[in-house]
């Protein structure tokens, strides 16, 4: 589903590489943790999958397509197959929960009937039934992240990318979010989650890819966060 082939990425004006000769292969339906210290290259790897950035060398494949060769106008189509969740939720503060989730469908031209059908379904899936008319600032952090996950998943993407989704949440709330991501993973969606939350990684016992200074230093099935941290 996602394949990195000897990928290197150097940002202009920076001496050292953000990623160096990284090869990772993520199968369809897998759940992968991307761990490592800040600046180890996790976010860069996720940006490459979304084609927010292009590799300096090597190839990135998503769903069988080499995406660094993708024409600019095809990039939106790629991103419709990928849901994205961030540490800071990135909800629109002046829209209700329903509107926030519906927004993701409206802007890619889905019909109104589909929007009114799918949005409540998805809110139910993430455990927010009955809260569709709330504004984001009336919700707890965990609930806001659920809205963000609903928005990322409402279009039923093949891949869900989560960049530190529990970074702003307390441990108990984080467990709930992880259960939700696990449930989404069980529907067949490939989940890639960048984190440095030890507890979460150790508890889930999923595949762990550890980056350090832009290089893969560990790729372990059913791993823990690791010893050095």
């Amino acid at each position, binding site marked *: 589903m996602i394949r990195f082939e000897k990928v290197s990425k150097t940002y202009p004006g920076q001496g050292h590489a953000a990623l160096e000769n990284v090869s990772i292969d993520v199968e369809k339906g897998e759940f992968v943790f991307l761990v490592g210290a800040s600046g180890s290259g996790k976010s860069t790897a996720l940006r490459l999958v*979304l084609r927010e950035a292009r590799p300096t060398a090597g190839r990135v494949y998503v769903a069988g397509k080499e995406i660094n060769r993708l024409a*600019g*106008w095809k*990039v*939106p*189509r*790629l*991103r*419709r*197959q*990928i*849901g*994205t969740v961030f540490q800071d939720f*990135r909800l*629109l*503060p002046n829209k209700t929960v329903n509107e926030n989730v519906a*927004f*993701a469908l*409206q*802007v*890619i*031209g889905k019909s*109104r009937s589909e929007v009114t059908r799918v949005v409540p379904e998805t809110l139910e899936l993430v455990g927010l039934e009955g809260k569709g008319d709330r504004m984001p600032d009336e919700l707890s952090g965990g609930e806001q992240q659920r809205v963000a996950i609903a*928005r*990322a998943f409402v*279009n039923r993407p093949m891949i869900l990318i989560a960049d530190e989704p529990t970074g702003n949440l307390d441990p108990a709330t984080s467990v709930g979010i992880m259960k939700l991501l696990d449930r989404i993973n069980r529907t067949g969606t490939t989940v890639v989650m960048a984190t440095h939350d030890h507890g979460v990684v150790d508890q889930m016992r999923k595949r762990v890819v550890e980056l350090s200074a832009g290089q893969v230093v560990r790729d372990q099935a059913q791993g823990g966060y690791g010893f050095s941290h």
Partner: protein
Amino acid sequence: MRYTFTELGQGLRRNLSMHLAVVLTLFVSLTLVGLGALLKMQATKAADYWGSELQITVWLCKDRDANASCLGEVTEAQKAAISKVIEDNPEVAGYHFETKDEAFEKLKETYVGKFDGPNSIITADDMPQSVWIELKDPEKFEGIKSAVSGLDGVSDIRDERDTLGPIYSAINRLQWGSLGTSLFLVFAAILLVANTIRLTAFARRREIGIMRLVGASTVYIALPFLLEALVTAAVGVLLAIGALVAFENYVVQGQLASQFVFIPWVDWSQVQVAVLLVAVLGPALTLVPTVVLTGKYLKV
């Protein structure tokens, strides 16, 4: 689509003062461009009628000519002799004869309705024939003037430079003045459009970020910006057209045309050309920077 139009409405309200500034600069600059074009057409039209600075007109004798040295209507032999002299002169670029009928037609065009019909006080017979001579250099006219003036059948020579020179140079200066001023204003309008886009892109950065992330197409993201640009352009263009129409109606037709009848003034067909120019230029002025800048600010 519904989203696009709500967004358009919001965008127009959010930056109302900015949009007004764009509309006003567009309005003034487009009006000046239109006026410049009208002046240019006015100059051409006057030159067609009066002859350009490069022309001198030789009036030939007619029956009962005011010039006492004329002995009746100019003869074909005299005309042949005159054209021989003109042809041999090195300062001449070209020339043509104007018949009595042609001269009368011109007169009727200037004074519409006054000399129509069989009972007109002036008829084609009262008009003199003439030769219109194009000079290579407007400064070198003395040679041809003196060569022609003594010939039989020549009644009078009109040197256009003295009378038309100041008028043409005034029109010319006004024309370049309005076009030059409009150039600065057009530049200001483009900068204002650019600023508006920057402000809007900043105000909507969350929405735009999410749209890009969930895979909205670039066109979809840029559409509200383009529509905003089109709306401001449309308003600016309409105001400018209004100003041009008012100028033609109140200034040209209402004042100049009735006071200075001896000059043919720009009419509605020329105004149409100016309006067309403004209608094309206005949207282009806002859309081109918008397309360039949305490409820059909204890069996927």
